[in-house]
């Protein structure tokens, strides 16, 4: 059986090498790929969409439909984690509470909500690591900057590398950092499961909704130009704005999905105790 697999690998590799026989030269400006459609994108991007970054205009406008599904793929990943991992069960059987002043830890068997919300006690994880003051302070300081940067990346996609996916990832990372450096419950206090769920759906909904809005306004799906009917701009600028709206949607979904995947995976779907 092992040799069979080896044979398969060799076969695939040989087909791959065989394919290279007819490859155009590396970076050849006369290769078919750079003669057929690409020049159109390069020349017309700015006048069609008023977006100088060709990557963004191809991504979100010329082939915006693909990107919509890519965003949906991310949404689906979050959805799959929710469906497969989420356990709507009550809290862990055993809970631990720490008296903040004295540092005494109470191990409570069975369920209780008595000490929740108490000022003197804090709930801690069963495998508790004492709070690290350096980490907490630094992340508290850094997180706003990270989020600011994320917004910058989202907004700056028109001009420089960036856009919804990258910005969303950075935004999500900031919240995951919060959950790691404090604990899962702190992260969930800032943005709880319901919010994440709604955000992840809302983001893709914004993308698809903008497309559908174009449809309702009487043009093809995702034909942002028609948004000029409701926006006080010309069709080209409307395309640019449409792309921006879409990018925002992508960022929201990516952020929410990243965080919720982290939450579900790290807490085995209970959203009770994290890493």
């Amino acid at each position, binding site marked *: 059986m092992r040799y069979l697999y080896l044979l398969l690998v060799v076969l695939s590799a040989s087909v791959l090498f065989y394919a290279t026989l*007819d490859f155009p030269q590396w970076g050849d400006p006369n290769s078919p790929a750079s003669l057929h*459609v690409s020049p159109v994108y390069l020349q017309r991007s700015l006048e069609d969409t008023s977006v100088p970054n060709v990557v963004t205009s191809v991504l979100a*406008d010329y082939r915006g439909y693909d990107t919509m*599904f890519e965003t949906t793929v991310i949404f689906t990943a979050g959805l799959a984690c929710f469906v497969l991992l989420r356990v709507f069960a009550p809290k862990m059987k055993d809970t631990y509470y720490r008296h903040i002043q004295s540092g005494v830890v109470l191990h409570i068997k069975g369920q209780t909500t008595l000490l929740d919300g108490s000022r003197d006690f804090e709930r801690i994880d069963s495998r508790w690591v004492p709070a690290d003051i350096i980490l907490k302070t630094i992340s508290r300081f850094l997180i706003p900057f990270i989020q600011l940067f994320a917004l910058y990346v989202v907004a700056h996609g028109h001009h420089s590398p960036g856009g919804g996916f990258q910005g969303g990832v950075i935004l999500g990372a900031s919240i995951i950092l919060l959950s790691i450096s404090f604990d899962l419950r702190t992260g969930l206090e800032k943005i709880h499961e319901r919010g994440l769920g709604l955000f992840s759906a*809302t983001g893709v909904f914004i993308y*698809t909704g903008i497309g559908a809005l174009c*449809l309702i306004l009487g043009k093809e*799906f995702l*034909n942002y130009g028609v948004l000029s009917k409701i926006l006080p701009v010309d069709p080209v600028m409307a395309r640019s704005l449409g792309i921006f709206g879409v990018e925002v949607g992508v960022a929201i979904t990516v952020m929410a999905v990243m965080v919720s995947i982290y939450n579900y995976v790290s807490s085995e779907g209970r959203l009770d105790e994290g890493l």
Partner: protein
Amino acid sequence: MSGTMTYHFSVILVTFGLLLSFITYAMTWIKRSLCLPFAVLSIGFLSYCSFSLFILVIERGPFEYYLGGWPPPIGIAYYIDELNAFLSLLVYLVALINLLCNRERFLEKQGDRIGGTMALYILFITGLNGILLTADLFNLYVLLEIASLTGYALLAIGDKRQAPFASLNYVFLGTIGACFYLLGVGYLYIKTGSLNMQDVSRLITQIPKSPTILSGFIFILIGIWIKMGLFPFHIWLPRAYTNTFGPISSLIAPLGTKVMAYVIFRVILFVFGKEFSFEIYSLGHVATLFGVAAILYGAITALRQTDLRRMLCFVVITEIGYIVAGLGVGNINAIRGSLLHLLNDVAMTFCLFLSADHLIVNTGTKIEELKGVFQKTPFGSSIYVLASLSVIGIPPSPGFFGKWYLLQGSLEAQNFWVFGAILLSSLLNTVLFFRTFEEGYYHHTESPSYGPKKTSLSAYGGILASGLLVVLMGLLAHPIVGHIVDPFLLRARLP
């Protein structure tokens, strides 16, 4: 206005599918009890759209839809013809019936997660519809990812503990398949610079002998074959479909593989073209080989199974073999047979899995546990018998018509391998199904737990509807060939 609206139905089908699935998921966090009714309504609405689209295509002939208003090859286009409009209608019907039939079971199994499950459910059929309608090779890949991802997630919801592992196994193989497809599309792009099917097809005819194009062809073909579960690439299929939650298997088993089979036809006939595939390179021999192997392997291995649903999985593998073998024979009657069989198989496999699932709920998954089930649930089991007879190919069931064209085509091409394999597998299928009939029919169990599980009226309605679908497909076989399959073949420039 209404005319243009129906023109937009092509894209509404897919994008509103997305929108509705997002809302369904969001509903989890607003009012959970509304998720399921909303999902049912959504699929109902989409089925209606699909039906209007189908009527439109039948009335006016095929048309293109430019997404974002960019004409291809700059943008992405949809190409809607009779065949894919009909298949999409079938997909929605199957999804609707399956959901209606298994509402309670979904709710019981998934509880508070029902919103997410329903969103995945809608996304899955939406992805399949996108695959059907698109005319862009890369867009097809993206939608393939959607359909696969949702498929993995749905299949991991298991009756049995092995379900997640089986699904993981599928994830690995499915990813390899998708990668191969993407690699192939990449090679085509390197040599043509385009992703639109029509455009690529035009450009390929200028450089048919390029090794890169050939490699792309091979990779795309193998990628899709893995996804559709053709014989040597099928190993994920029985495990994934057997262990999963029953209503999921009755959704994915009929739809997943058949839509991929449609992609094969689309790619071979409309991208690479008949000359490239059959005359320059001898796809015919390869496909015949694989197809015959799949038919025989599926039919023989199915005989060895003790688990009912696993047995049906091998029946699915056999059916895939028919479709590929018909493609391999390559003349008009055989391909007509393949396509007709593909369409019929959606209905047949669906009915088979749905009714078998009903039997399984009442007894157990093993065939020997079926004892006396025909007395317990005479209605469900008679639909099971109907579907089985259709798979065997008893006229006037739909299975018969597909086989007839396949046999006629292979006889015309003097391809006796395919001819013999189809006949033999029909006979083996007879043995196979009558084995289950015997178990169900003969043994009385007079135990105190005797009596059917409580089954709601809608479940019976769903099973009945699936049976009716099979009967209708059989009765309408000739119009289907005349109005749906033949125009498709005509445009593929088959004689």
